[in-house]
């Protein structure tokens, strides 16, 4: 059977979501951001919420997420996305409101906003990309950089004595009473991507059922440019080095077994 006989609309099994536009993404080859963007777009489409979603982009590599997914967006100051999302959701309670933040944005400069938005139980979803490095500014140390990992501002590897310890912020968020769902996922292969999509779907559904509570989906991710590895090797390095520090799975799901 010739390829052209297979390539027909009725045989379509996978394509990028419609609201993900054709603008070329500024991300480096193999960047996890692209996959997570796609999942966010897919879930919004599948939930039928294109007209009812307001996203908040961070400062960091994902600052331009608004150029790639055709929904309404607000671009926040560094770390402040959960504060924006708080107000948006309270003023427009029928909308799906989510933030998309990196580790520097969420776990360093925006720690207070993150913790307090979650603690207030805001009905928002936080998509948290943890790749242990500041990509946009050229690969500096992040709060989540693991021991020995080399970055532009810890060129000999992170030293706990000098720089303190990796901040496992989702471990803390899970204990807040305002939290409803915290999970840690990854996107290095198709199975992992499917799981992450389910997690994002659950987080977004939590925002819309009126029961309240914040949902956080951490995605342990790669930064091949920052890590100075090929995308394939970056995935392997992540599995071997990041996953022991940031083990995957649900940290808390208050709707489980209900």
């Amino acid at each position, binding site marked *: *059977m010739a*390829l052209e*006989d*297979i*390539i*027909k609309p009725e*045989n*379509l*099994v*996978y*394509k*990028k*979501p419609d609201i*993900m536009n*054709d603008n*070329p*993404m500024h*991300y*480096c*080859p*193999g*960047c*996890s*951001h*692209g*996959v997570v963007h*796609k999942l966010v777009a897919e879930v919004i489409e599948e939930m039928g919420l294109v007209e009812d979603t307001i996203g908040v982009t961070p400062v960091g590599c994902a600052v331009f997420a608004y150029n790639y997914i055709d929904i309404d967006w607000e671009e926040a100051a560094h770390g402040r996305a959960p504060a924006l999302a708080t107000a948006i959701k309270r003023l427009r309670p029928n909308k799906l409101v989510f933030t998309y933040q990196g580790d520097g944005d969420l776990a360093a400069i925006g720690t207070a906003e993150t913790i307090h938005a979650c603690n207030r139980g805001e009905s928002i979803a936080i998509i948290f990309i943890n790749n242990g490095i500041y990509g946009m500014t050229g690969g500096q140390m992040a709060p989540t950089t693991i021991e020995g990992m080399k970055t532009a501002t810890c060129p000999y590897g992170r030293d706990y004595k000098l720089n303190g310890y990796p901040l496992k912020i989702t471990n803390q968020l899970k204990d807040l009473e305002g939290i409803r769902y915290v999970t840690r996922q990854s*996107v*290095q*292969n*198709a199975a992992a*991507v*499917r799981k992450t999509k389910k997690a994002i779907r659950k987080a977004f559904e939590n925002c819309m059922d009126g029961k309240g509570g914040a949902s956080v989906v951490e995605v342990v991710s790669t930064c*091949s440019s920052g890590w100075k590895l*090929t*995308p*394939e090797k970056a*995935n392997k390095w992540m599995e071997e080095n990041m996953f022991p520090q940031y083990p995957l799975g649900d940290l808390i799901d208050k709707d489980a077994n209900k």
Partner: protein
Amino acid sequence: MAKIKGAVVVNKDRCKGCQLCVVACPANVLAMSKQVNAKGYNYAIMANEDACVGCASCGIVCPDGCITVYKTKID
């Protein structure tokens, strides 16, 4: 017995040559082109068309949304 047959269409202008689709393919269908696209990247191609079962793993892991996957049954 019905056989599943798939096809992968790569938007070669959008592809950045990260090769994650090549790694993700369980049937070793995909490879990188010798040619480069307008951006100078080698892009993903179907090197082994017959082996494709349309599982879409390549599309699912593609960070740039370059891949569309089709699948049909052949009796």
